[in-house]
């Protein structure tokens, strides 16, 4: 179990700055997810933590102990790679045991640890197979098993599910959640570009954008009170509706955000009105796309009881306490509508 502290961590390759002044505190035993679009520096940050890349500036500590100058093997970490990184010429047993040989453990001890991990991951019948004789999901389990047997204090995952198909991804996600609950002694950092994965797995999420931390918080915090337009756009599926121009001006902001489930059909008190241009029925939910004259159609989530068909004119209103307003810098406006002399409107009209 380790508490991980990143203080002003920066990383540059040559002249390009990839990680900028990251400050982050990861609590002992929690599952922290780094999420962000591709190229935002998630992998690089992870590699800085595990020591595969050198930190350009800033301080990394595990339980208060500086890790900047420690080689990866001294940090007590395990890593699961996106590409699995299994040794292709070793069978599953050897793959899992290879890293243990040196750790002063007796052969029986090694055997027991490997068997335990294999049972936990249900790969104990595959121990004498080579990686190429396994399916993608099985390989992933072996990679996770290899990480588990080392009994690390910090567990790192770099997009472990991205090479799996959709159903396997969900199953393995559950598996990882289970491991997190069973291995109370390990702090986990999990990298993904998929916000659904982040929302479902994380104790806390760290949203990265362009090598900078946008927001850190629990999934609920990020979902309900994003502190930037970027986070609002990135978190949530389907994505938040974002309205600009006159739509936003009415609410004294630059961008008005409203999630699809926070819009209700109300013909009497309709704030926005438009024709249904497309509907998507997912069984439990019905999504409708309304053309209200904004840049992109307004997405509204209805329950399956409500019947709306294409071409119909529908009026909707937002639930007032679920509006997200952002200023021209993409920062949220917390003051209630009309409570402040709106600087937003002034700058906009200027």
């Amino acid at each position, binding site marked *: 179990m380790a508490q991980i502290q990143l203080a002003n961590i920066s990383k540059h390759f040559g002249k390009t700055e990839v990680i900028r002044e990251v400050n982050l505190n990861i609590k002992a035993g929690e599952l922290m997810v780094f999420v962000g679009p591709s190229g935002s520096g998630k992998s690089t940050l992870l590699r800085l933590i595990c020591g595969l890349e050198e930190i350009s500036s800033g301080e990394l500590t595990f339980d208060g102990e500086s890790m900047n100058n420690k080689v990866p093997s001294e940090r007590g970490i395990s890593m699961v*790679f996106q590409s699995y*990184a299994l040794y292709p010429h070793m069978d599953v047993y050897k793959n899992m045991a290879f890293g243990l040989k040196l750790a002063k453990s007796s052969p029986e001890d090694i055997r027991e640890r490997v068997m335990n991990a294999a049972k936990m991951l249900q790969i104990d019948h595959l121990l*004498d197979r080579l990686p190429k004789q396994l399916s993608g999901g099985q390989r992933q389990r072996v990679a996770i098993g290899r990480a588990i047997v080392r009994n690390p204090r910090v567990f790192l995952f770099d997009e472990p599910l991205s090479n799996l198909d959709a159903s396997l991804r969900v199953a393995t996600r559950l598996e990882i959640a289970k491991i997190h609950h069973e291995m109370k002694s390990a702090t986990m950092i999990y990298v993904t570009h998929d916000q659904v994965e982040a929302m479902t797995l994380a104790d806390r999420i760290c949203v990265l954008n362009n090598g900078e931390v946008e927001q850190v918080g629990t999934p609920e915090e990020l979902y309900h009170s994003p502190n930037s337009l970027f986070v609002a756009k990135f978190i949530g599926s389907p994505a938040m509706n974002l309205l600009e121009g006159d739509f936003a001006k009415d609410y004294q902001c630059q961008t008005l955000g409203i999630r699809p489930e926070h819009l209700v059909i109300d013909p009497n008190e309709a704030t926005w009105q438009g024709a249904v241009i497309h509907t998507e029925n997912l069984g439990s939910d019905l999504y409708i796309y309304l053309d209200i004259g904004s840049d992109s159609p307004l997405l509204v989530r209805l329950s399956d009881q409500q019947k709306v068909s294409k071409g119909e004119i529908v009026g909707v209103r937002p639930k007032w306490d679920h509006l997200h307003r952002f200023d021209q810098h993409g920062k949220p406006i917390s003051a209630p509508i009309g409570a402040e002399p709106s600087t937003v409107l002034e700058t906009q009209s200027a």
Partner: protein
Amino acid sequence: MDTSLSLSKPNTKLKSVSSLRQQKLRAAMWFLAPMVTVLFCVAGWPLLRSIYFSFTDTSLTDLYGGQWVGFKNYLTWTTLSSGRTIFSGTLADPTWWNAVWNTIKFSVVSVSIETILGLMVALVLNQEFKGRGLVRAAILIPWAIPTIVSAKMWGWMLNDQFGIINHMLMALGLIDSNVAWTSNIDTAMFSVLVVDVWKTTPFMALLCLAGLQMIPRDIYEAAKIDGIHPVRVFFHVTLPLVRPALMVAVIFRMLDALRVFDLIYILTPNSKATKTMSVVSRENLIEFDKFAYGSAQSTLLFAIIAIFVCLYIWLGKLNLNGDTQR
């Protein structure tokens, strides 16, 4: 694994599968036909002619007038009236066996050294460093120089009176008097080996490098995180994974080394210590006007190389299987 798969396939599919196979085979044959024809004309036919000549008494002056003599060029014996049996033919020729021994010595030593050095160079070139591209290109220069040129060049460098090697060794005080490296019977083989290693290590390095670059980088990172000692990583990860590439490289080089001719012919002409099978058989074919006898030696050379290749591939296969079992 493949056999069990094809066995479990339902029988109904077999027919259509096999006709598809036939179609593919036919197409493959058409694609191969031109190459096979050319190969037969430039390699197959001359080879067959050589083998035929080796069973005749053909001479260079009368190429088409040879008579069939059976194994006379290989081995015959006559029993004298005194009861003594005299063997003659290539297989009883001490010059030939000296050449066989020289060839084997040269091949085994040079290929071993080149493989080890080549792998070492490749490991270095596989690392990231500034100017790697330049070094990679530069290291190929010895390989790019025609053998005749490099043999002449080294011949001069090793010259007993004007050679720079003698000059340097004298200056360093390592030798007291000039050594005739290439003509001295004790150092001739050594000189040939040095030049061959100098010339061919780059080629080995390049083949090894290609093998090394096939190994995914991330498994090295995994090993690094697990804290596995680099030496252990080399022997347990790198070496097993480059072995297929290494096998191919060694077999290429071995084939080349077993029929070595130009380097030895130029650097150490007529030295008993370095004459190889190719050199000896050429002597007989052209210089000594024993065309059929030379043909027999060429045929033997071909047979030795063929046996060697079969053996090597067979051993390699055994080894590969041994690895998959735990």
